[in-house]
C-alpha cells in the first residue's frame, strides 16, 4: 500500500464502514421483525407449543438432529417430521427408543410423560408450518 493511503484514512474507513453496515443491519432487522408475523406461524404458538419447545431444549435434541437445518447432522431433520411421519408415529418412535440394534445409531430413552409427548408433537407441528421458503427440497429433509 502506497503512502497516499495513510493509517488515519484506513482507521476512518474502518469506523465509518462498520457503523454504516451495522446500522444497515439494524434497519434490516427492524424490517424483518415487522414482516415476521406473516412467515413465522406465531398465531399457532400455544402454551402446549411453548412447553414442547422446553421439552425439545431440555433433552438436547439438537445434539443429534437438525431443526430447519440447524443442529447436528447425526440424525434426521425434524423441522418437517410432523408432515413426514405424523403425530402418532413420532410418539411411538420416541417411546420405543433405544432400538438396541447392534452397531446402529442409538437414540436415548427420555421417559417422557404423555403430556410431554403431546407438547413436543405440538411444537413440531407448529415448526412444520413455518414458512421456510420451501426448504427442505423434499419430504426426506
Amino acid at each position, binding site marked *: 500500500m502506497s503512502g497516499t493511503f495513510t493509517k488515519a484514512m484506513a482507521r476512518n474507513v474502518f469506523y465509518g464502514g462498520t457503523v454504516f453496515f451495522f446500522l444497515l443491519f439494524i434497519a434490516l432487522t427492524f424490517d424483518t421483525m415487522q414482516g415476521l408475523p406473516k*412467515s413465522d406461524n406465531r398465531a399457532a404458538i400455544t402454551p402446549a407449543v411453548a412447553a414442547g419447545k422446553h421439552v425439545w431444549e431440555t433433552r438436547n435434541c439438537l445434539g443429534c438432529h437438525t431443526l430447519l437445518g440447524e443442529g447436528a447432522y*447425526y440424525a434426521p431433520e425434524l423441522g418437517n417430521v410432523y408432515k413426514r411421519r405424523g403425530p402418532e408415529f413420532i410418539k411411538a418412535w420416541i417411546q420405543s427408543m433405544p432400538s438396541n440394534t447392534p452397531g446402529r445409531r442409538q437414540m436415548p430413552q427420555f421417559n417422557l410423560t404423555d403430556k410431554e409427548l403431546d407438547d413436543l408433537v405440538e411444537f413440531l407441528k407448529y415448526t412444520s408450518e413455518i414458512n421456510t421458503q420451501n426448504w427442505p427440497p423434499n419430504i426426506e429433509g
Partner: protein
Amino acid sequence: MKYKSQAVAMPYFIAAIGLFVGQILFGLVLGLQYVVGDFLFPSIPFNIARMVHTNLLIVWLLFGFMGSAYYLVPEEAETELYSPKLALGLFWIFLAAGALTILGYLFVDYNTLASATGNDILATMGREFLEQPLLTKIGIVVVALAFLFNISMTMLKGRKTVINIVLLLGLWGLAVFFLFSFYNPTNLVMDKFYWWWVVHLWVEGVWELIMAALLAFVLIKVTGVDREVIEKWLYVIITLALVTGIIGTGHHYFWIGTPAYWQWWGSIFSALEPIPFFAMTVFAFNMVNRRRREHPNRAAVLWALGTGVMAFLGAGVWGFLHTLAPVNYYTHGSQITAAHGHMAFYGAYVMVVITIMSYAMPILRGRQANSNKAQVIEMWSFWIMTISMVFITLFLTGAGILQVWLQRVSEDPMPFMMVQDQIALFYWMRLWSGVGFAVGLVLYVVSFFIKGKEPEAVAA
C-alpha cells in the same frame, strides 16, 4: 518477556492445550459413533459427546484469547498488567466453572442438570453451542467483564496502539454479543434469528478482529516490519471483515422463517466474506517476505503463515462453496456444513491461538525460542494436524455431496438414515484422518518437553 505480569498468560495457555486434547478425544468418539452407532451407548450418547466436543472448543479458545490478551496487552501498552492477581483468580474461577460444566454434561442427565441450574426460571439451554447451564452462562459474563476491566485498565494507563485497540474492540464485542444467549423466545424463528447474533457475529465478526490483532502482533515481532505498515494492513483487514460479515449474517436467514429478501443480502455479502481472509493470507506472506530479521522461532512463523492459508481455505473457500442461496437450498444442514465448520475453526481460531502460544510460550519459559529439536517436532505437528484436517474436510465434503445428491437432488430421494449407510465409507476415512490429527496433537504436546540448546538470532 518485557513485563513480569505477562507471566499470567502461561496458565491460560496450558489450560487451553489441555482442553484442546479433551476436545479431540471427544471428536474421535463422535467420529466412531458415526460408523459404530452404539459405541459408548448409553453412557455417552452422541448428543452429549458432541456438546462436550464443541463446548470444549469454545472454552479452550476463550482461554487462548484471554491468555493472548494478558500476554499482548501489557507489552503493547508498555506497562504492567493492571491486576495480575485478578487475572490469576479469574483463571481458577473459569477453569473450575468450565470443568464443572463439562463434568455436569457427562455425569448428570441433561434435563436434571437444566432444572437444577435455573433453566426453568430463564430457559437458555438446549440450543447449539449455547448448551451451558444458566449459571455457567452468568459465570462466563462475570469472568469476561472482570477480564475486560483488567485489560482495559492496562491499556488506558499505557500506550494505546492500534493492535491493542482492535483486540479490545474484538473482546468487548465478544462479551456484548454473548448477551444474546440469554434471549430465548418461544417463537422459534426469533430464537434462531438472535441466536446467530451470538454465533455468527462472533466467528464471522468480532472474533476476526481478535484474530487479525493477534496475527499482526506476532508478525511485528517475528518479522521486524515497520509497525505503521502492519497497522494499516490491520485496519484494512478488519474493515473488510465487518463490512462483509455483518450483513453476511443473512446467509443464515435463508430458510428459518425469515423474509425471502435475505437470500439476496445474505448471498451477496457473504460471497464477499472470503476477501478479508484472503487479505490476511497476503498480509502474512507479504510481511514475512519483507522481514528485517530472521527470528529464531521458525515454528511461530510457520504457524502464522499456516493460519493465513488455512483460514482462507476453511472459512473463505469452503464457506463460499455453499453460501449462495440457490446452492445452500440443497446443502443447508448437511455434511457440507460440517466440513466447512471443521476447517474454518481450525484454520482461523485454533491456528491463530497456537501461533501466539508458539511465539509466547518459549519467552514465558525464559528463552527467545525453543531448541531446534523441539521446533522440528512442533513443525511436524503443524504438518500432521493441518494435513489431517484437510483430509477430514475433503472426506466430509465427499460425504456431503453424496448425501445432498441421494437425499435431496435425485428423482427418488432416499430417507436420511438410508443415505447415512451409503456414505459410511467416507465417515470411516474421516475417522482415520481424525486419528492422524490426534497423532499430530500428541506431537505438539510432546514438543513442549523437548530440551536442547536455544538457537541464536541472525540478522537478515
